[in-house]
C-alpha cells in the first residue's frame, strides 16, 4: 500500500504565490459579479481592477521586504522562484497595468470596454506575466507565457475593427510559432541535461563542460527565435507594427512595455549563464541581433506616415537597445535594463495615451489613418498644451536630457563602456541620433507646420476624460522630474539585481 504523500504546508511556502493569485481571484470575482448583474458600467470594472492591482502591488511590497531580509525564496515544490529580478519586473508589470487600466475610461464608447470579460482577461494576463517572471522552471514559464498571450490576443480582437481582427490573428499565428520554438528549445535542453530548471541546466552543462555544444546551439537558436518573436527582434518583428496599428493606442502602448519586460526577464535568466559560459557563437548571434534590431527598426521608423506605426518601430528599436544589456551581461547592464524600462514605460505609455485621447470614432476626409502625421499638423496653435506634452514625450524618447529616458540611455551606454563593448556603445549612441529624426518629425509637424485638416473642436483631446488626463499628468511629471527619481531607482534596482546574482 502506498504511503500517503506527506508535504508540510510550511515547505510549500504558499506566500510566494500570493501576488499571482490576487489578480486571478480578482478576475474570477469580476466574472461572478457579471453573472449576478450584467450590463454594469465599465467604470465599475475599471475601479475594481485598480483596487485588485493595488492589493497586488501591496503584496509585492511585502515580498520585496521578505527578499530584503532573507534573500531569494523558493516555493510550491521549488517551482516558484522569488528573487530580485522577479520582484522588480512584477513591480513594473503591475505599476504599468495600474497606469494603463484607467485609460479605458475614454469619453468615446469603444466596444471592448463594455464587456466585463475584457477586465477579467486583463487580470488573467497580468497573472500570466507574473508567473512567467517568478519561476525558474521552463514549463511554468511556458504556461505563464501562453496564459498571458492568449488573453492578450483576445483583448486585441475585442477592439472590433477589421484591422483588429487581422492584428489578433497575426499575433496569434506568430505567437503560436514562437511557442512552438520555445517548446522545441526547452525539449533540447531537457534532452541534454534531464532537467527543466534553468539553474540545473546551467549546472549540468557546466559540469560536462559543454560537451554537446552542437545541441546546445540548436537549443539556443530555438530560444532566440522564440524570444525574438516575443521581444520583436529583427527579423522576427514583422507582426509588431501591424498589431500595434490594429489594437487601440492604449493597448498598443501597454503591449510595448509589459509583455516585453516579462520576456526580458526570462531571456536574462536563460541567456545569462550561456553568455558567461563563453560560447562565442551565442555572443555573435546576439550582437548581430541587437545591432540589426536597433538600426533597421530606426530606419523603417523614418519612413512611416502614421505616428502609431512610427512609435511601434521606435519601440522595436528601444527593445533592441535594451537587449544589449543581456549581451553585455554585467550587474550594471542588467540594472540598466530595469532602469531603462521603468523610465521608458512612463514615457512610452504617456505618448501612446496622447494618441489615445486624440482618437476619433470615424476618420474625417483627408486623414489617411487614425493617427497620421497630418492630424497633428499645427497642433501647437490649436492646443498648445497638448502639443507641448507630446513634444516632451518625443524629446524624452529621443534621449534629450534631462528628460526620463536620457538617464536610462546614459546608464545603458555607460554599462556598454564598462563592459568593454566600445563599438556597441558607439552604435547605440549613433542610433539615438538616427532616432532623433523621426521623433523630431512629429515635433516639426506640431510646431512648425500649418494645419492640414480642419477639425470641429479640439481634435487632440476629443477622447479625453479626467482620468485619462490624470494618467497623462502622471506620465508628464514622471518624465520631467525623472532626474530626482533616478538615484533611488538605481540603488533599488542595483541592490535587487545584485542580490539575485545577476
Amino acid at each position, binding site marked *: 500500500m502506498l504511503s500517503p504523500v506527506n508535504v508540510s504546508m510550511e515547505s510549500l511556502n504558499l506566500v510566494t504565490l500570493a501576488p499571482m493569485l490576487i489578480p486571478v481571484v480578482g478576475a474570477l470575482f469580476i466574472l461572478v459579479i457579471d453573472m449576478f448583474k450584467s450590463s454594469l458600467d465599465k467604470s465599475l470594472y475599471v475601479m475594481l481592477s485598480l483596487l485588485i492591482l493595488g492589493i497586488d502591488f501591496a503584496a509585492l511590497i511585502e515580498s520585496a521586504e521578505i527578499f530584503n531580509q532573507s534573500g531569494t525564496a523558493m516555493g510550491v515544490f521549488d517551482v516558484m522562484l522569488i528573487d530580485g529580478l522577479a520582484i522588480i519586473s512584477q513591480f513594473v508589470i503591475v505599476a504599468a497595468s495600474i497606469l494603463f487600466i484607467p485609460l479605458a475610461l475614454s469619453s468615446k464608447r469603444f466596444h471592448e470596454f463594455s464587456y466585463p470579460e475584457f477586465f477579467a482577461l486583463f487580470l488573467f494576463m497580468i497573472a500570466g506575466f507574473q508567473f512567467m517572471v517568478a519561476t525558474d522552471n521552463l514549463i511554468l514559464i511556458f504556461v505563464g507565457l501562453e496564459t498571458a498571450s492568449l488573453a492578450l490576443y483576445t483583448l486585441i480582437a475585442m477592439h472590433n475593427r477589421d484591422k483588429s481582427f487581422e492584428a489578433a490573428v497575426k499575433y496569434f499565428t506568430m505567437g503560436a510559432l514562437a511557442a512552438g520554438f520555445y517548446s522545441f528549445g526547452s525539449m533540447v535542453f531537457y534532452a541534454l541535461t534531464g532537467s527543466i530548471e534553468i539553474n540545473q541546466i546551467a549546472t549540468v552543462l557546466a559540469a560536462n563542460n559543454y560537451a554537446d555544444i552542437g545541441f546546445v546551439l540548436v537549443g539556443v537558436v530555438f530560444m532566440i527565435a522564440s524570444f525574438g518573436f516575443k521581444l520583436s527582434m529583427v527579423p522576427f518583428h514583422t507582426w509588431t507594427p501591424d498589431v500595434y496599428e490594429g489594437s487601440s493606442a492604449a493597448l498598443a502602448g501597454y503591449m510595448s512595455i509589459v509583455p516585453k519586460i516579462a520576456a526580458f526577464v526570462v531571456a536574462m535568466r536563460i541567456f545569462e549563464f550561456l553568455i558567461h559560459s563563453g560560447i562565442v557563437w551565442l555572443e555573435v548571434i546576439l550582437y548581430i541581433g541587437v545591432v540589426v534590431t536597433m538600426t533597421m527598426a530606426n530606419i523603417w521608423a523614418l519612413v512611416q506616415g502614421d505616428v502609431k506605426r512610427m512609435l511601434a518601430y521606435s519601440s522595436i528599436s528601444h527593445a533592441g537597445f535594451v537587449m544589449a544589456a543581456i549581451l553585455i551581461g554585467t550587474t550594471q547592464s542588467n540594472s540598466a535594463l530595469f532602469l531603462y524600462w521603468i523610465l521608458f514605460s512612463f514615457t512610452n505609455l504617456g505618448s501612446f495615451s496622447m494618441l489615445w485621447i486624440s482618437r476619433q470614432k470615424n476618420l474625417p476626409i483627408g486623414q489617411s489613418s487614425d493617427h497620421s502625421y497630418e492630424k497633428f499638423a499645427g497642433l501647437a496653435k490649436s492646443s498648445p498644451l497638448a502639443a507641448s506634452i507630446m513634444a516632451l514625450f518625443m524629446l524624452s524618447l529621443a534621449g534629450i*536630457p534631462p528628460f526620463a529616458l*536620457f*538617464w536610462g540611455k546614459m546608464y545603458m551606454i555607460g554599462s556598454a*563602456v564598462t563592459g568593454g563593448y566600445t563599438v556597441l556603445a558607439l552604435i547605440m549612441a549613433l542610433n539615438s*541620433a538616427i532616432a532623433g529624426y523621426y521623433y*523630431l518629425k512629429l515635433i516639426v509637424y506640431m*510646431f*512648425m507646420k500649418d494645419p492640414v485638416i480642419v477639425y470641429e473642436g479640439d481634435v487632440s483631446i476629443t477622447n479625453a476624460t479626467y482620468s485619462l488626463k490624470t494618467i497623462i499628468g502622471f506620465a508628464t511629471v514622471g518624465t520631467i522630474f525623472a532626474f530626482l527619481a533616478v538615484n533611488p531607482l538605481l540603488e533599488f534596482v542595483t541592490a535587487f539585481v545584485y542580490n539575485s546574482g545577476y
Partner: protein
Amino acid sequence: MVDHILSILVFFPALAAVLGFVVHKDSMRAYGVAVAAIEFILSLWLWHSFDPNVSGMQFIEQIALIPSFGINYIVGVDGISLFIIILAAFFTMIGIASLTDTKDVKNMIITLLFLQMTMVGVFVALDAIVFYVFWELSLVPMLYIIGAWGGPLRIYASVKFFLYTFAGSLVMLVGMLFMAYFYYQATGQWSFAILDWYRLILPESFQLWLFVAFFFGFAIKVPMFPFHTWLPYAHGQAPTIGSVILAAILLKMGTYAFIRFSLPLFPDASVYFMYPIAVLAIIMIIYTAMVAYAQKDVKQVVAYSSVSHMGVIILGTFALNVEGISGSIFLMIAHGVVSGALFLLVGVIYDRRHTKMMDQFGGLASVMPRYATIFGIMMMASVGMPLTINFVGEFLSLLGFYQQSHILTLLAGIAIIVGAIYMLSAYKKMFFGNVTKEENKNLPDVNKRELIALVPLVIITIWLGIYPKPILEPINNSVESVVQLMHEKSITEEAKKRIPNLVQNLAINKTSAREAH
C-alpha cells in the same frame, strides 16, 4: 545669496519663463526685457563679487544628483567662463529689447528665456553630465526659434541644425562615459566632476581616442570645417534674434568646451592634434572667407565671416600657451559682440526692405547715415582694425600661435586680410554709390529701439579695443592655471616642450629681477 548666485543665474530665467505663460501677450515684451535686465544685473553683480586674483573656480555649489553613479550638480565660475556668461545675459537682454514685430511674441520670449537658462548652464557646469544636459537642452529652444520663425527653408534648416549637433554630442557622451570609467578604474569611484577629472593622468593612446570623441561634439558646434555645413542654413533661415544668439553665444559653447575639456584633460593629445587642427582652422578661415566673398545675401556674408573668425579662435586655443588661449577667449567675447551686432544690423535693413540681397541696396549711406556709421564701425571691428575689440583677440591669438608655427600663423594672417576684402566689398555694394532703387530713397534711419541695442555694442567694441585690461586680466589668471596644469599633466617630451612651464618662467623672472637689483 552670493553663494548661490550661479544657481540663481541659471534658474531665474527658467522660472521667469514658466511664470511668463501667465503674462498677457501685450505686456510680454516689457516682461521679457525686465527679466533679462534683472538677469544682466545679476551677472554684473557676479562680476563685482568675482575675485580676479583667484585663478581657480569660484562660487562653487554642489548638490548630489545621482551619487551612486558619481553625477552631481556642480557649478562654478572662473575667468574663462565669467565674461561669456555676462555676454549671454547681455545679448539676451538686447535681443529681447530689439525684437521687432514678431508673430507669437509671447512664445518667442518664453523660448528665449529658456534658451538663456541652457546657455548660462553650459558655462557654469562643472560636472560633465550637467554640462551635457544643458548642452543638449540648448538645441530645443533654438530648433523652435529657427523652425517657427524662420524663412522658407526653416524646417530643413532647423532639423539639420538639430540632428547634426545631436549626433556629434552623442559621440561626445560616449567619450564622457569612458572618461568616467577610466576615473573609476583609477580611483574606484565614479565621478563626472571636471575638477576630479583634471587630476587624472591618462596614457597617450587613451587620450587620443577620447580627444577624438570629444572633438566631434565640439567641432560640430563651433562649427569647424568640414562640419560647418549646417551653419549657413541655420543663419540663412533663422530670424534675426536667432542668428544673433546663435552667433554670439551658442557657437562659443564649442570653443569654450575645447578649453574646459579637451586641453586640460588631454594635453598630450592636444599637442598631437595641434597641427591637423590648426590646418583645419586655417582652411576654415580661408575657405569661408572666399565663400563669403561670393555671397549675394548680406546675411550669408556675415554668417560666413563669423565662421571664418571662429577659425582664428580655434587657432588661438590650440596655440596651447597663455597668449594664444587668453587671446582666443577674448576673441570669443569680441566675436560675440561684433557678429551679434552685425546680425542685428542686417536685421535692421531686413525689417525695412524684407530682402537681404545686396544688389537690392546701394547708396544707403546717404539715406541712412547713422545706420551706415554703426555698420561701418562694426565692419571695421570685424576685419580686425586696431583699437577695436576684435584686434586685441586676433592679435593675441596669432601671437600665441606664432610660437608654435611661423608659416601657419603667416597664412592665417593673410586670411584675415582676405576677410577685409569681402567685408569692404559688401559694405561698398550696400552703402556707397548712388541710390539706384526707388524703394531705398525714403528708408527711415535707425530708430530709438534699435539704437538702444546697437549703441552699447559700439561702446563696448571701442572701449575694450582701447583698454582690454579689465577683462583680459581675470582671463589671463585662469588661463595660466590651465596651461600650468597641462604642462604638469603632459607625459610626452613633445608636449612638455610645446606647453610652456609657467612656474619655471616665473622663477627665472624672479631670479633675473633679483640679479637686476
